[in-house]
């Protein structure tokens, strides 16, 4: 892995987080919102992979790679829950626009 710089990888992660946050803050469509969250989460998973690869000792590197695999599974379950909420919202309101779902305020 020589010749490659950590900074470039971290910049990629940062960019992904920024894209995800932008999506979360600007999208009103619940599905797009979920996609944006997934993008941001992938940045975190990528970070595990980088640091495992750059780790000098094999046990720590293995730990990082296994964490990445587990997190991918977590991301999948999270999307499943998110989509369930989307369906429930659609059934209750006939729309998946999050700006319509403000009941928690009152």
């Amino acid at each position, binding site marked *: 892995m020589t010749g490659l710089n950590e900074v470039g990888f971290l910049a990629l992660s940062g960019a992904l987080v920024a894209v995800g*946050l932008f999506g*979360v*803050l*600007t999208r*009103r469509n619940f599905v797009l*919102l979920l996609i944006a969250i997934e993008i941001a989460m992938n940045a975190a998973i990528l970070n595990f992979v980088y640091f495992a690869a750059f780790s000098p000792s094999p046990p720590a590197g293995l730990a990082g790679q296994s964490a990445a695999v587990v997190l991918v599974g977590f991301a999948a379950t999270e999307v499943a829950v998110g989509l369930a909420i989307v369906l429930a919202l659609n059934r209750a309101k006939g729309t998946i626009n999050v*700006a319509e779902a*403000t009941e*928690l305020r*009152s």
Partner: protein
Amino acid sequence: MELSALFGWAFLVPLTYVLAFVVVGLAGPRLARLEWGGWVAVAAAGVAMVLGVLIGVGEAASPGATTNRQMLWLHLPPAGPFPGGLSLVMGTLVDPLSALMLIVVSVVGFLVMLYSIGYMHQDRGLARYYAELSLFLAAMTALVLANNLLEFFLFWEIVGLCSYFLIGFYYERPSAASAAKEAFLVTRVGDVMFLAGIFVYFQLYALSGPAGGWAANGFVFVHNGSPFVPIGTGNGTLRTVAGLLILGGAAGKSAQFPLHVWLPDAMEGPTTVSALIHAATMVAAGVYLLAVTSVFLGFTGWDDLLIVALGGITTFFAATMAVVHPDIKRVIAYSTISQLGYMVLAVGAGFTMVGLYHLFTHAFFKALLFLAAGSVIHAVGTQDLFRMGGLRRKMPWTATAFAIGGLALAGIPPFAGFWSKDDILGSVYGTLGAHPAYWPFFLLALAAVFLTAYYIFRAWFLAFSGAQPRDPAAEHAHEGPWTMRVPLVVLSGFAVVAGLLAFVPGLPNLLEHGAGIPPVYRPADLALSAVSVGLAGAGIALAWRLWGNGRVYTLDAASAAQPLRRLLLNRYYMKAGYDWVGARGVATLARLADFVDVYVIDGTVHGFERAFGGLSDRARRLQTGLVSDYASYVVAGLIAVFALLLLVAPFVLGRIGGG
């Protein structure tokens, strides 16, 4: 049985009245047959009168006997300068002073109660009336029998309360309601001074005197059967202050200048109340307080002069105000103030028992005058003297009774007032050599003799003389029922002989008290007596000249005397002045306080309220319910945390040198 065996049971007298108060107060509204409880109150007053008179006679038969009976009310644990703790006791003290007062209160109380049956017959709220009157008599007899200053003060307040209730008996009438308030507030000025006086005496005598000091003794007036005279601490200024404060209390209760304004207005109450409370008993409590204080605690020189001055001034000024008044009850009310002034004068000059002698005779003839006036008012329905006239033929009993009362008041021998009033004048005259400063007040008191005779006979001639009533309403006037006539007859008897009683063997014992108290002065100075009787005769003659045979003397509108008349009718504008102080001065103060309250205190509170209200209103708007808004708050928070960690924390840590 020896009558002295009763002395220890004196507490039964107030208890009898309390019983009547409870029974009438609770059951009275259902006792229509018994005049709404009136007869119950009369019976109780009768029992109490028998007991009171027996105690009085017993005391007269055993000269100087002092019977103290007390129980512990409250014991405060030892503290500070009182290693033995402080005791407060309740008790009865039967001695010549209290026995004399007990006779007055119980006898006049019974007669007024009986008279009320006839006089109040048509009134509503009779149960309330009799209950309150019984409570008053209970408190008054308890006050008279009190064996210590705190107990005295307690019952002093209760009689004031009853006076307030009874002045305001016709509370639907605004003038009665305001008169009741006035009486309560003005006497309250005196009461506060009295209480302060007790505090000063406490400070002075708490540790001195026998048995560990006056306070440790429970403020009781006697010790081992003789007057408990605390050892003076030598602090003359404090003693003077205490005496002045006590004098203030007495002036409030006894309507002395300048706290006299409430008594004429107290005539808004039923006439019976005026006779009992505002002539014979409660207003005399102030004089009794002065007497008790002078016997047991003693006044200093300055106090004496001030008391004499107060008495002299009050005697004269109250008499002048009575001269022009058209209201029969108020004429007698001013006369009461004036006569109380004589008593205060006597006490101040050192003749305590002479003052009480006048209190004794005055109680009877003044109650008589009030009840006779009440009889007239009952028959005619007005208190205005100028609407009466010619009542002598229609109401011979009342006319005679009023005349006897008037003669006694004017001081014509051998009626009661002559003996006691001349005693006062003679006694004070005897001190003029030693105290030249008493001269002006003696002369004022002497001049008041003339005025007294004039105003009371002006009232008599206006009401009773002449052929026909001036007002058709008085055409059908007639005497009241027997319940009203009997008290008149009995009191007339007293008004004739009460003064002579001082010459009956025994009674003088009631007028002598302990060592060092000057005994009764008998009118030895014939010349002085001649002068005072001459003045009284001249007053009566002038009254006859102006008002006799139903004549009505009207003052020219342009007469030079008109401004004087207006001044007197307006009571020297003193009430107006007090009202002004009350309405303007106090109201301005109240408005100022109101301003501070509304704008400063409430302003601060409301300011905080508005500020936080606005703030939370803003904060509320953050709560939109939009997911993306919450997400942006989270992001903003994150950025803030990072900013703190990366930018601020290193800077701060570098400054404080941490690491």
